[in-house]
């Protein structure tokens, strides 16, 4: 059971190992707070859809399972989008179109197909939590690295002194690709996969 949770954080990390969900990973990680809010929103959708699909798994006819997954996922994404706009409008405008685009995040559809539609509710919950937190962690790390090298801050707190000259490329798409590939390389190195 514990394994279901842990694997999303490390061995099967959606970003660093499976390299899934690259669109939000690259696009919104200009700062720690953006990465964190995207990660949490995705985790919510993952957990809610996982619970729903797993508890309905015996009722859903096989032929329409993908359509069913999509109805469930897009409903939860819309809920998240409305709640973000209502309660944290500043973050919602920072994330822009990437918030509703969570619906196309393949981690979510992938987990329903590979896990929630086959396994009991409790295991699906742990799996979704693990994958979601693993995704959020990756986004937070990437966001912090890019924010640090862009303007010398992490989460808005000054880390590097005023001598630091801002690296504009880090908040641009090129900086996203560079830092992501370096982080994936580092992750492979640490986990001994080379």
């Amino acid at each position: 059971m514990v394994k279901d949770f842990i694997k999303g954080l490390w061995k099967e990390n959606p970003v660093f190992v499976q390299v899934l969900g690259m669109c939000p990973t690259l696009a919104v990680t200009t700062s720690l707070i953006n990465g964190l809010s995207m990660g949490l929103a995705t985790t919510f959708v993952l957990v809610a859809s996982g619970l729903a699909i797993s508890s309905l798994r015996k009722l859903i006819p096989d032929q329409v399972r993908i359509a069913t997954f999509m109805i469930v996922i897009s409903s939860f994404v819309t809920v998240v989008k409305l709640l973000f706009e209502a309660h944290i409008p500043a973050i919602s405008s920072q994330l822009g179109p990437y918030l509703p685009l969570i619906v196309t995040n393949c981690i979510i559809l992938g987990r329903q197909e590979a896990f929630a539609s086959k396994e009991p509710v409790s295991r699906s919950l742990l799996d979704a939590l693990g994958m979601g937190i693993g995704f959020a962690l990756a986004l937070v790390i990437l966001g912090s690295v890019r924010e640090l090298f862009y303007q010398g801050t992490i989460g808005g707190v000054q880390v590097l002194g005023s001598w630091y000259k801002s690296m504009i490329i880090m908040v641009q798409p090129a900086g996203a690709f560079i830092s992501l590939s370096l982080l994936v390389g580092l992750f492979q190195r640490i986990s001994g996969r080379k």
Partner: protein
Amino acid sequence: MKKIGRMVLTLTVLGLISGLVLSMVSNYADPLIKQNQQEAIREAVYYVVQPTESYEKKTMDGKVIYESYDSSNELIGYAFTASGSGYQGTIRVMAGVGPDLKEIKGIQILESNETPGLGGKIRGEDFKNQFRGLNISQEVGLVKTEEPETGEIQAITGATISSRAIVNIINKELTRVRSIFDEGE
């Protein structure tokens, strides 16, 4: 046949539940979202025409204009929104002008997708403050490296297109607002 029936039933029931849940959430969130938008407009009006104490929303010739009053209830200017293309996507700004339409009181960026670090600097105080008290007896001008003179704005280094976009958007809307006021008199 039985299979098809079950497929249709599953999708229909799920669709109904989803619709019900979404309409409930939307009922809850919509007033809050509207309130947030109004709050954003209010903050922008207070920011562009200082020191606004209260304002009134008026629609003139299809154009929404916010009349700003100071603490002694004196008309100190007008604020209005303007939009146009930036380097990436649409830029929406709020601009404030003096009551005689001879100077800009201030501008605020409501919406923009300019390149972070370059065009994104149009949101910075350094750029916006150039508009405070700007003379608009002529069209707003844009200079690159030379010192800006009366009625001119200095472009952000590396973001000439975004800077020019703001100037153009404001010039265009000023012309429109002027003609509305001229007709009104």
